[in-house]
């Protein structure tokens, strides 16, 4: 479309900036490194903006496509492009990166340039995942993005960081090896092709579909994370620095669900439909089980981490309400998938904001224990307003972004299977219970801890970051069309595609 390879820029600009930051940091020039970091993050958002604002909503086809041979021997191509499923994620990723880099001094006592560098490199790799149209390219980005997160937790994390980083790495590795096997299998099956588009079109027999589906499942369910593969997440969140937690929740968790949409559903539609009930059951388990577990948490970060798992349960639920036993219409499946996509974007803002808020408190008191707080509202009224807004978004109050995905998924579920809707709707009660109870214990009541009385309210930088996140939360909540219009045609196209059996 345009002469500028925007997607390549969105990938490599942040990575290049990250390397410059690293170099400047190693040279001991921290101010210069900081400038590079801010510039890189801003440039990333700048090149990503046209992807969103210049997006052609009248076609479900791939846009901003770039294609060059990469490893001709195996017919691996450097093939990029975005459609309605992925465009918004690139934008979200660049936005969150800017937020994290801009707000990163909150999280670390002394400014660490290499930390910013890691964020930038990671941002580029994430963009790569969302725009890769070649299976091997996807896999390379998917795996490479593991490393910066691992470093973030392992180097800049809390006291239990080594164990947490190791657990995180093992879990995700356990998932990615089957993914690699599946990719290679598909390569041979398709007659030597790594193009995802080709995989979409090729017929696959039933047994192979099952194998490939469960390989995908291992990779993406760990990443999402789906119950019961979620136990690495709370630990990773607790140990990760604030910025790491934000990126982990806002972007990294979306990779799994995105993988289901980009690979599992269209490549192995018959297996996806056949095993959808497993996915629905695991999603519901996540909503209820995790909701209850969140209620019992005493550590704020752990609580929000568990709440993320429950919210992601809603995402996978929305994706896999494919064909009901009674025959759910395509319209209701579309509602579910759109709901899931919007829920993912919304969760990026809301969970990111929640972790930022916890970071603001942690920065001041060095505690994440709910019991150490109480009466913060008195000391930090401005902060209290933001935290209330994001808590309400976490609960899914209408007018905030959290509501949109939730209601679409529940409406879709009511048509799919009323029992599913019944269980899913329990999130209304559970999410309100754990979120408000935490808010009450942290923010309300008399000040009992003398350290709390001495707290300073948020400064200008924190105010700016929180305002930007609030703008996103309210913007999506009040005008979700800004997202749904982009997604609509791609979702219908996807559903049309997977309705046709590939078994020959």
């Amino acid at each position, binding site marked *: 479309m345009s002469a500028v390879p925007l997607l390549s820029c969105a990938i490599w600009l942040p990575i290049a900036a990250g390397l410059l930051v690293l170099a400047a940091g190693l040279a001991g020039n921290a101010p210069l490194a900081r400038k590079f970091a801010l510039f890189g993050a801003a440039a990333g958002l700048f090149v990503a903006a046209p992807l969103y604002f210049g997006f052609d909503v009248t076609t479900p086809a791939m846009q901003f496509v770039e294609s060059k041979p990469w490893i001709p021997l195996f017919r691996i191509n450097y093939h990029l492009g975005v459609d309605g499923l992925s465009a918004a994620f690139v934008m979200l990723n660049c936005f969150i990166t800017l937020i994290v880099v801009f707000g990163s001094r909150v999280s670390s006592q002394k400014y660490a340039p290499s930390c910013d560098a890691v964020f930038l490199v990671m941002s580029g790799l994430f963009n790569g995942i969302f725009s890769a149209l070649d299976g091997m390219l996807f896999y390379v980005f998917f795996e490479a993005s593991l490393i910066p997160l691992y470093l973030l937790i392992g180097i800049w994390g809390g006291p239990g960081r080594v164990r947490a980083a190791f*657990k995180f790495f093992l879990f995700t590795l356990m998932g990615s090896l089957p993914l690699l096997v599946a990719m290679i299998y598909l390569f041979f099956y398709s007659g030597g092709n790594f193009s995802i588009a080709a995989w979409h079109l090729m017929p696959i027999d039933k047994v192979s579909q099952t194998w490939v589906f469960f390989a995908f499942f291992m990779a993406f369910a760990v990443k999402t994370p789906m119950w*019961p593969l979620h*136990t690495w997440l709370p630990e990773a969140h607790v140990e990760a620095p604030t910025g790491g937690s934000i990126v982990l929740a806002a972007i990294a968790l979306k990779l799994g669900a995105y993988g289901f949409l980009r690979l599992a559903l269209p490549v192995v539609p018959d297996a996806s439909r056949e095993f959808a009930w497993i996915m629905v059951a695991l999603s519901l388990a996540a909503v209820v*089980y995790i909701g*209850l*577990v*969140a*209620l*019992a*948490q005493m550590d704020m970060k752990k609580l929000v981490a568990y709440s993320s798992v429950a919210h992601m349960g809603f995402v996978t639920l929305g994706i896999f309400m494919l064909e009901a036993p*009674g025959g759910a219409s*395509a*319209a*209701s499946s*579309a*509602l579910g998938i*759109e709901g899931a996509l919007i829920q993912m974007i919304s969760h990026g803002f809301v969970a990111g904001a929640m972790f930022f808020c916890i970071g603001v408190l942690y920065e001041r008191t060095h505690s994440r224990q709910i019991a150490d707080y109480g*009466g913060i509202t*008195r000391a930090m*009224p401005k902060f209290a307003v933001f935290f*209330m807004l994001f808590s*309400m978004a976490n609960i899914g*109050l*209408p*007018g905030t972004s959290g*509501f949109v995905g939730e*209601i*679409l998924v*529940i*409406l879709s*579920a*009511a*048509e799919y*299977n*009323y*029992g599913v*809707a*019944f269980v899913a*709707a*329990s999130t*209304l*009660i559970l999410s*309100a*219970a754990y979120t*408000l*109870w935490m808010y*009450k214990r942290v*923010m*309300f*009541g*008399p*000040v009992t801890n003398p350290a709390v009385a001495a707290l300073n309210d948020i400064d200008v930088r924190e105010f700016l970051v929180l305002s930007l996140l609030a703008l996103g939360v309210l913007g999506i909540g*009040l*005008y*979700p*069309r800004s997202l*749904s*219009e982009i997604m*609509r045609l791609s979702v*219908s196209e996807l559903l049309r595609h997977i309705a046709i059996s590939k078994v020959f």
Partner: protein
Amino acid sequence: MGTQGLYWLVPLAPLFGALVAGVFCRVISRRIAGSACILGVAVAFAASVAIFLDVREGGGFDGIVYTWLVSDESVFGIGFLIDPLTSAMMLIVTFVSLAVHIYAIGYMRDDPGYNRFFSYIALFTFSMLMLVMSNNFLQLFFGWEAVGLVSYLLIGFWHDRPSAAEAGMKAFLVNRVGDFGFVLGIGLIFAHFGTLDYTSVFNLAEKYRDAVVPLFGSSGFPLVSVICIMLFVGAMGKSAQMPFHVWLPESMEGPTPISALIHAATMVTAGIFMVARMSPLFELSETALSFVMVVGASTALFMGFLSIVQTDIKRVIAFSTLSQLGYMTAALGASAYSAAIFHLMTHAFFKALLFLAAGSVIIGMRHEQDIRYMGGLRKYMPVTGVTALIGSLALAGVPFLSGFYSKDSIIEAVRMSEIPGSGFAGFSLLTGVFVTAFYTFRLYFLVFHGRERFFAARGKQDGMHAHGFSRGQAPEEPPWTMTAPLIVLAIPSVIAGYLFIEPMLFGGFFHKAIVTADSHPAMERVFGHFSSPLEMALKAPGSAIFWLTAAGILLAWFLYLARPAIPAAIRARGGVLLEFLENGYYFDRFYAAVFCGGARLLGKGLWKAGDSGIIDGLFVGGSVRAVCRIAGLLRSLQSGHLARYAFSMAAGICAIFSLWFFIHMNWIKP
């Protein structure tokens, strides 16, 4: 376009005020913040009047004005449905809201959260208007949740008080349990009707009258009945019907003006409004109506009993509100939707009046709320005393006052109803009349008449900041900004019933907005006995209702003015029944133990046993242990002992050479 702009103006003017007061709450003065909100609400009131007049001339509107989301075949958006029912609600909401705004200038005078308070109540007005003006279920839900949010914020307004924070959360969570049903009702509508637009749903409903659907994978459920009951569960949460009533008494932790506005006049009546709005659906389901009626009648009676034993001035009125909401709900069950809305209106006036009078008393008494430490206040606070008497008479249902007309109509309608449960409902409501009159005048006499008890020394209680009086000091009437709204509300409390009973109940004002099936002729039969408001009041002594009211008032007088020793003796003696009532039938303790305790316990159990025990311990830990064991075996191969290495090497070389030798000698084939 002109009228559409007017429709927009109604909710947006208060929203504008709320944003000005809220966003700039630390920058602007109290005067600006208060004025912005009051101006916004005043504009909304004026516009509502204009719309009301237009609707009376036959004007109206139904359509989407803002598209929120489009998905495949469905369009979700903000729309307005302007008809007599909506415009009546708009008038009630904006009128009471305006009175409460003005009252709050005086009431919140010394509060540091003045601007925040105004921002909240203006935001509430916006939300409530969005709720009543909606033409679809999604926006209804938006308003529904938004009023819940503001209610939560206002109950916990004094957030340093642990009890207030607790009460706010409780209100939100109990409402959410109701919303759980509400959302599922909406989901069911969407799943089967394919739209969330009121008019389309109503048009389709007739077709589904006898539809039976499989739910939960089993036998058939009558679709419309399930939808109605699910929606009504939402109404039970919002309108605090048993067993969801537990949050309302606790909501009294909030400032008194909002108790008047939100927890008496408007928000809690949202459930009543919703069911009336859904009359085309509810009329199709006898089961749902029966359920509604029994729930309402039970609430009316049993919550009335609880009001008798309260000692906090606001809690007496709060339990009375619960009971009156029960009356409205019972009317809905009898298909007397117009009577329910009529009582909603009169109740909004006199109950807001009573709450504001209570607030005036609290200020006059320097934040004392216990009626046992009041008495004889009419001497010191004449305006409050007279207006409170008017409110009490109206609440008790004394002829010619507004409450008389609306309550009598409800009782008549329930008695005329033939659906299952109407016998029980009729009995409960009739008994409730006596209870209402008794607790209302118990309150009135204890506060405004009798011995002045506020000099009695009172130990400092925690959580209360009552200052108490020493000799020579006396309670005083609060400033005019607080007494003027009392007078403004006292007027309709007297005359609204007389003026509006004919047009609202029998004059076809709600034609088309409210549908009643031919098989539910309760209201028609009531009309058959009705000639004019004057005659209705004059004929009152011929009915049991009148004498029950009189008996209630008389008994209150006898026990609390003539022989105050008797109730004191009863209280001193205690007993099972008294304890049962004072603990509110043990609902709270039951919920706290079973639901709150149970959920926490379950959560902890799943966390410790499920996450840490089984998933991490058995699966993750198990595989790690397996890896460790294998690694341990391998590790023993690289122990670092040179001798062992040398031995292994020698053994290896021997093995390879033997192998080569054997192959070479053709003893084995490779």
